[in-house]
C-alpha cells in the first residue's frame, strides 16, 4: 500500500558531501545518502557539522539531541545511523532490515577493507580524485606490514586505474611499475605496456627486454582491438551525446561538463 511522506524543512545552508561533490538539503536526502552510499560513510561521519545541520538547518533539535546522546554514550556509529533512519521514517521496516544486514557485513571488514570499499565506490561514481586520495591512505609510501601483499597490489592497481581516468599516466605507470617490481606479474606488465601506448610514453627501460617480440605484437593488436571498441562506444557516451544537441543546449551542458572537470582538477591540486 502506498503512502505520502510529509517532508520537513529544506535547509538554507546545505550539508556538503565532499566525496560526491553534492549538497544535501533535507533529512530525506540525508537518509538517502546514508542508505545508498554506505561505503562512503567514514568513521567520523557523525560530527559537529552534521549535528549542527540537523539541529539548526533542518530544525530537528530532538533528532540531533538523540543522536548526540546515543552516540555520546555508546560511540557506535552504525547503531546511531540505524536509529536515525528509523526515527525519520523515510525507509520501510524491510528496507531498514536490509540496511542493518549491510551494516553487519560492513562491520566484519577490517578498516583497510572499508577504505578500499569506499575508494572503489568512488571510482564507480567517477569521483576519481577522491578515490585517489582514499587509495593513497592505504598504500602510503610502500607496502605496509599491516596489510597483506595481495591487498597492497590490488590497491596499487586500483590507484593506477584511477590515475588513468584522470589522464595522470606518469603516476599510473609509477604504481604499476611498483607492483611489477615486487611480483613480476605478466598481467601487470601488459598493463604497463597498455598505459605506455595510450599515453604515447616510451616503454620503461629494462621491463620489456625479456618479452618476446611476438607477445608484444599480440599485446599491441589486443590494445588496438580494445581501442576500436572504445571508439565505437564513444558514440553512445554521455559526453559525446552533448555534441549531437542544439547549440544552446550544447553550450549549457558543456559548461556543466567543464565545471565538473575543473572541480576534479582542483580536487587533485588540494
Amino acid at each position, binding site marked *: 500500500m*502506498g*503512502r*505520502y511522506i510529509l517532508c520537513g524543512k529544506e535547509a538554507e545552508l546545505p550539508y556538503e558531501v565532499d566525496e560526491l561533490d*553534492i549538497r544535501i538539503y533535507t533529512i530525506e536526502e540525508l537518509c*538517502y545518502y546514508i542508505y545508498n552510499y554506505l561505503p562512503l560513510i567514514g568513521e567520523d561521519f557523525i560530527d559537529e557539522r552534521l549535528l549542527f545541520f540537523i539541529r539548526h538547518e533542518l530544525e530537528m533539535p530532538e533528532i540531533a539531541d538523540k543522536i548526540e546522546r546515543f552516540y555520546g554514550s555508546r560511540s557506535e556509529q552504525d547503531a546511531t545511523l540505524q536509529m536515525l533512519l528509523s526515527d525519520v521514517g523515510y525507509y520501510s521496516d524491510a528496507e531498514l532490515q536490509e540496511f542493518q544486514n549491510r551494516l553487519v557485513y560492513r562491520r566484519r571488514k577490517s578498516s583497510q577493507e572499508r577504505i578500499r570499499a569506499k575508494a572503489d565506490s568512488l571510482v564507480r561514481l567517477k569521483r576519481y580524485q577522491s578515490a585517489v586520495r582514499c587509495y593513497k591512505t592505504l598504500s602510503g609510501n610502500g607496502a605496509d606490514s599491516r596489510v597483506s601483499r595481495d591487498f597492497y597490489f590490488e590497491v596499487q592497481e586500483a590507484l593506477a586505474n584511477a590515475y588513468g581516468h584522470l589522464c595522470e599516466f606518469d603516476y599510473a605507470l609509477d604504481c604499476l611499475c611498483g607492483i611489477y617490481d615486487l611480483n613480476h606479474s605478466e598481467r601487470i606488465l601488459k598493463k604497463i605496456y597498455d598505459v605506455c601506448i595510450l599515453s604515447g610514453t616510451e616503454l620503461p627501460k629494462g621491463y620489456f627486454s625479456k618479452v618476446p617480440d611476438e607477445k608484444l605484437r599480440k599485446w599491441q593488436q589486443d590494445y588496438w582491438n580494445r581501442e576500436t571498441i572504445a571508439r565505437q562506444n564513444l558514440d553512445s557516451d554521455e559526453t559525446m551525446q552533448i555534441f549531437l544537441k542544439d547549440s544552446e543546449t550544447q553550450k549549457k551542458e558543456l559548461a556543466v561538463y567543464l565545471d565538473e572537470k575543473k572541480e576534479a582538477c582542483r580536487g587533485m591540486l588540494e
Partner: protein
Amino acid sequence: MEEGLIIGLDLCKDFCRISYFVSGQEEPADLVFSEEENPYVIQNSICKKKGEDVWLIGQEAYETALLGGGSIVDKLLRLVARQGFATFDGVQYSAEELLYHFLDETLKYLYAEKKTKTVLQIMYSVQELNTAVLDAVIRCTKRLNIERKRIHIISHTESYLYYVLSQRRELWSNISVLYDLSGDGLNYYELEVLRGMQPNVARARRTFLEEGFSLDILDSAPGRKMADNIMTSCVDRMLKKKLISSAYLSGRGMDSCQKWGENFLRILCQRRKVFFIENIFAKGAVYAACEYLRETSSYPFSIMCEGRIDVDISMEVTQGNNMRVLNLASVGNNWYETKEDFDLIPDQETSIRMKVKRLEERMPIIIDVPLKDFPVRPQKVTRVNVGLSFESEKMFTVTIMDKGFGEFFPGTDKTVRKTFTIGGGM
C-alpha cells in the same frame, strides 16, 4: 494587549467608511471624515493636483477637479476590478497605484485623529470577494508598511455576522436580519445559529433583492411613497413566518427611513428590536479583526457565510513513523486566506489523493490528481510541492510541482494543476 489601532474599513464600490478600536474603548468608534451631510463616508474618488505630487480624495478631490486643479477618478474600486488605468498629468497610473494612494490618504485621517500610526489589525469588508480587488488591496496595504499578517478581508455578510454576534445574546438567539439600502441596491442579510452541531454553526446569508430602487426616488413625495410600499411588502413577505430577535437597517437609503418609511417601520418594529446602525460593516470588521488578537475565539461557532468554505479537505500522510491526517482546509475557513503549501514524497503512489467532506454530507469524496508526465525515477526520490488555494468558496485548485530529490535527482518544475468545484464536477 499591544497598543495600537484595530481598523475596520468598509470598502464599497463607491465609498468607504472606517470604524476603529483602541484599547480602553468598549465599542468600535466611527471615523468622521468631514462635517458635511454624511460625515462617516468618504467617496472612492481620487484626484492628483496638477503639477504636484499631491493626492486628494473624497469631497476634496471633486472640488479640486471642478476648479480645474486636476483630473479625477471616481468609483475607484470598479476600476481596480477591471485592472484598468487612468492618466494624470500625462502619466498613466494603474488602478492599483491609485488605490494605494487612496488608502494612504484615507488612513491618514485616522492616524491624524488618533495620533498614532501603529496598526494592530486592519480588516477590510467588501461586498464582493473579487480576487483582482482582494489581491490589489492586500498589496497596497503592505506597501503602507502594514505587515501581511495584520491584513485581512471579509465579506459584508461576515462583517454583519460578527457585528450581530458581538451584541447581547438575546439579539441573536433567533433569527437576525439586516436591510442594507445603498447606491448599489437593496441587500437582505439573515443570520441564524444552527444549534445541535458540534460546535454550533452561525450561518449568515445575503440576498440581493430585485425590488431595490434608486436612492434618487427618495427626493420626491411619490417616490418616497413608492419606496415605503416596496419595503413594506418586502418585510411582510420575508419576515412574516420567522422568529426574529433583531432587525438592523443600514446604508445611505436607510438613514432617512423615518421620513419615507412610515408603514415599513411600523410593520418591522412589531414585537421586534430594530436598530439603525451607521457603519455596521466597518464595525463588524473591527470585531472580526479583534479575533486575530485573541488566543482563543470569542465566538464558539463554526462560521458559514459568503467568503467562508463549507468543506473539510484533508490528506493522510506519514510524519516520522506516525500516520496523521493533514487538514488543508476546514469548514468555516475564509476562502481567500486558505492557502496551503507543503512538500510530500509519494511512496508507491502515482497520484495525490485528498478527502473532501462537505458539512451536510456524511461520507467524504476522494479526489485524485495524477502525477501525469512527471519524470520516471526510482521510488521515493520525487519530492512534490503541493499547493491548495481557493478561487471562491465553491472552487479550489490543487497544484503539484516536481521538485526532484535535491542534487541526487534534480527537479524539473513540471507542474500539474487541477481545479475542483465543490458540490459538482468533482
